[in-house]
């Protein structure tokens, strides 16, 4: 049961990482800022700008 719960937590963490939600939390923590629409847009623009400047795999 514990292993199952751990696997579930890991899966959720992976989804949050793929969704950039974890990176956003790290961004807030690193810069000591609070969540807001403006902050998300600033983070998202920077993040997406870098993500979509790299080739995607075929």
């Amino acid at each position, binding site marked *: 049961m514990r292993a199952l719960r751990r696997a579930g937590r*890991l899966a959720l963490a992976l989804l949050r990482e793929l969704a950039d*939600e974890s990176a956003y939390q790290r961004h807030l923590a690193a810069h000591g800022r609070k969540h807001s629409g403006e902050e998300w847009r600033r983070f998202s623009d920077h993040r997406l700008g870098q993500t979509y400047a790299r080739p*995607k795999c075929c």
Partner: protein
Amino acid sequence: MKLLAHLFWAAVAAAAALCLGGIALYRGEHINSIWLVLAAACTYATGYRLYSKFLAARVLALDDRRATPGERLRDGHDFEPTNKWIVFGQHFAAIAGPGPLVGPVLAAQFGYLPGTLWIIIGATLGGAVQDFIVLAASIRRDGKSLGEIAREEIGKVAGFVSLVTVLLIMIIMLAVMALVVVNALRGSPWGTFTIAATMPIAILMGLYLRFWRPGKVLECSALGFLLVLAAIAGGQAVAKSAALAPVFTLSAMALAVAIIIYGFLASALPVWLLLAPRGYLSTFVKLGVIMMLAVGILFVRPGLQLPALTRFVDGTGPIFAGKIFPFCFITIACGAVSGFHALIASGTTPKLIAAESHARAVGYGSMALESFVALMAMIAACVLQPGVYFAVNSPAGVVGTTPAAAVATISSWGFPVSVADMTGLANDVGEQSLFYRTGGAPSLALGMAHIFARGGGGRAVIGFWYHFAIMFEALFILTIIDAGTRVGRFMLQDFLGHLTPKMGRAGGLPAVVATSAVIVTAWGYFLVQGVRDPLGGINSLWPLFGISNQLLAAIALSVCTTILVKTHGARYMWVTCAPLLWLILVTFTAAWQKIFSPVPAIGFLAQAAKLEAAAGGTLDASTRTLIFNARLDAAVCAVFMVLVAAVLVDSMRVWIGILRGVRPAALCESPFVVSRLRAEEL
């Protein structure tokens, strides 16, 4: 305890050998797909446990005391030491493209055996080794890209050629992927409506995420997924509507133009509006469908209908012409060895690695899993009746322009199929016709629908699953097209920016529009060429894509070999030289045949000569275009060969110099810094 472990791994290795031997030697009745699954799982497990451990300990000497760039350069954005299994998932999601799904489906024309062996053995000894070593090399160099590593370790020529090769490969890749989508949606109002609906859904998601619920990506993606499911259901109603069905029944050329316009808009519009929401949705759908397919195959355990080897091993295949060697090995690129993976392994991933030893699971393990995805695609294609498989995948130019002619030709090959069979199947999946649907996507969707429907629901739900699979493939591919066009635009802007700052990244809207148009025109030209091709386009473009992707792998393995020679001399050169030699043999033979083969179905120049001869002295505009296209494809092939030969010669010059002792063997690694990460952070 150690003896027990040795015995266990000996048993796994023996099981791998037994299953591989079994599928290679067994002839007669159809075999069950579970044999392929077991052969792959045991081979990957043995390769991971033994070979990758050897690579990690002896060849790469990975050291967890050494701080990774994720720790040293930690910035909370790109550089961040992350849990091993999360990086594994992220890396796998990044390398899992449509290539490993489409390539094996096309290569199934040789039968299931050649492709399956290449997928399993190629990944274990080649693809996973390349990904692992490039990742480890990038970790030791602050997460630098393949091009930067090539420039530092080999020389400026190698670095420049790598960048140019990547741009050229992307143009061919975007064209061939777009062609797969065109062939999947041609004459299909259900599929076209579903995919068209994903555009407003993505824009809605973009606005939701930007203004209404900023930061709630998972929530927004779940909402988007529900809307996409509703679009699939709506597509069925559209296909049945006398008023709406004609609106969404588009010709191949109309679809090609629509995709070209989409590519341009996606490249020029803000990322957050269209690309990003589609990208998030596509990633989650991709992982979910791959898991569903794995569970489906294990649950249903379908039998393989295609034989181990078909008569087309002689090179007369209807889907693409050419013998097993070299064409099977370039048709399946991403599932066995993919040069593109080297770009991902030297991109985001090395910046997230927390400890050097994690590179083994992330680099080698992810590629093994990707190879497993390719194997599942092979199984999905091989569960179809062979006659159906060839009727769906063969172009009209080969099998005949009417359904009656097509089934007669295919049945004469020893794969019986009737017009009634095909009509019944088309009715079941809600399509007007399934003939001449080249490109691999429709037959993969049929195979997947077959497996999912057998898992529950039967024929009543096969139409839904077919269009679900088409939606998954098209969504997936369009994400590659939109992102690829944008990346191509950036690469072009970076290059032009050196000549005139107005065309660089800071050049504003005119530069964005102009460079987007150039990139879209480049791949759009090849796409239109594929649509006009009487042999279906895939016959010309897929081998070109396979050759270019494998040539990029040859560049990556040259870089890896240079690093190994600098580290150990000649001792471990064989690790990367063996797959490199194989790839050189395969790609240069394939490229040579594609240019100079006297068989018009294979050689581009022979094809041009045949068209010229057939037209006599009076060439009309369309024949002139076909002749020009064949010669252009030959020229592109030749350019790839020259570019990669330049990198190989440059690399060999470095290897020989080091081995003779006349050249310094200095590595360009970042300095050793002791890791301070605590155990819980790893």
